[in-house]
């Protein structure tokens, strides 16, 4: 489950960051991938569309959002948790 989610997240991020899929790893942080706040918002939009979920992400205070964006793996885990909660 998680690995499917993570693969999709990596694909979304790779497209946004204009990187090869291989360069986006589970432990990669937004900072390492060169993603600024604008890019993170775009990624959150893509995640909402792809997984058909509503992501609790406050773009004005990303650090205090419930949605963990500290690294790629954390994002995938948070998505799985949201999907499970909605199911």
């Amino acid at each position, binding site marked *: 489950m998680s690995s499917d989610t993570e693969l999709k997240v990596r694909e979304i991020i790779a497209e946004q960051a204009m990187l090869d899929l291989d360069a986006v790893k589970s432990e990669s942080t937004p900072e390492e991938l060169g993603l600024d706040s604008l890019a993170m918002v*775009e990624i959150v*939009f893509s995640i909402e569309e792809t997984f058909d979920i509503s992501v609790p992400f406050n773009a004005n205070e990303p650090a205090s959002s419930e949605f963990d964006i500290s690294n790629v793996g954390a994002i995938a885990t948070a998505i799985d948790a949201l999907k499970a909660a909605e199911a």
Partner: protein
Amino acid sequence: MTYTISQIAAALSAEAAGDVALQVARPSHPGKAGPTDIALAMDPRYFDAVKESSAKAAILPEGAPWEDLGLEAAIFVGRSRYALSKLTTAFAHPIHAPAGVHASAVVDETASLGEGVSVGPLCVVGPGATIGSGGRLLAGATIGENAAIGPDALIHSGARVGARVRIGARVILQPNAVVGSDGFSFVTPEKGSVETAKSGEAITDEVRNVELARIHSLGAVVLGDDVEVGANTSIDRGTMIDTTVGSGTKIDNLVQIGHNVQVGEHCMLCGHVGIAGSSEIGDRVVLAGKVGIADHIKIGEDSVIGANSGVGANVPPRSVLLGLPALPAGDTARIVAAQKRLPDLFQTVRELKKRLSAIEPTR
């Protein structure tokens, strides 16, 4: 001019290790550092470059494995950009500005020059002007009548200080900066097109701007201590009051500050910022590149306004704004992200309309 590692460490208030008596001539990029350079590798991603270089010394982050990088000596710093400030101060190139007045300069006999002042070639210092001790005027700088400049000023080539302008201590004016140009202030004899447009009325024959009468600038400009004004930046004088810039504020190149504007202390105004007349910029505000500030508004202290933003209304303290119109940066990020999706959204709506009209053919 060379320094020992221990001298540099002392200048940076930092710890050093290894052969601290080693002499280095200049700081260098790690990829280009030679044996007499000190490589700047405050980020671990430069460690490989240091290893491959012939540098014997480097500035590294605290706790870095300096011996593994093939170095003979190292200095350890915490906040790397701040270390750069002290480091570049130590290695700054001296400015050619010998004390005394160059033969080609014109200094009015009623002007007063403090101790050790340097007035370069083709400078002009007007009647009643005062230049504080240690001040340096580089070639072609001009100081207007009764202007007062505090001690240790550095006025670069071609910079203009207007009449009656008052400048604090240790101020730096970059080449061709203008402090004390007239305000852009004009008025129509009758109600004009701008007032009409603002009140939402049509611009008729009667309200055209047939004449623009000049409102003279009777005020001056006052700069606090440690202000820096960038190349080709201009600061207009006030109409009745003085235009002011608080101590410690740094202004980039090509910035326009309008008449009566009051800029607080320790602000940063980046390139192409434009501030219209009578606006107030609070202390420690940062305006990124190309930010435009409308007239007669207040930007609350400690606010950060992102590049290219346009601010048309008062801003509370500590705001982080972006965009045109400037909104909380996260809101603008959401709008920009949503905007990118608009073409797809239109396509989706078209398809939905088609499907809907197939279901409900009468509508």
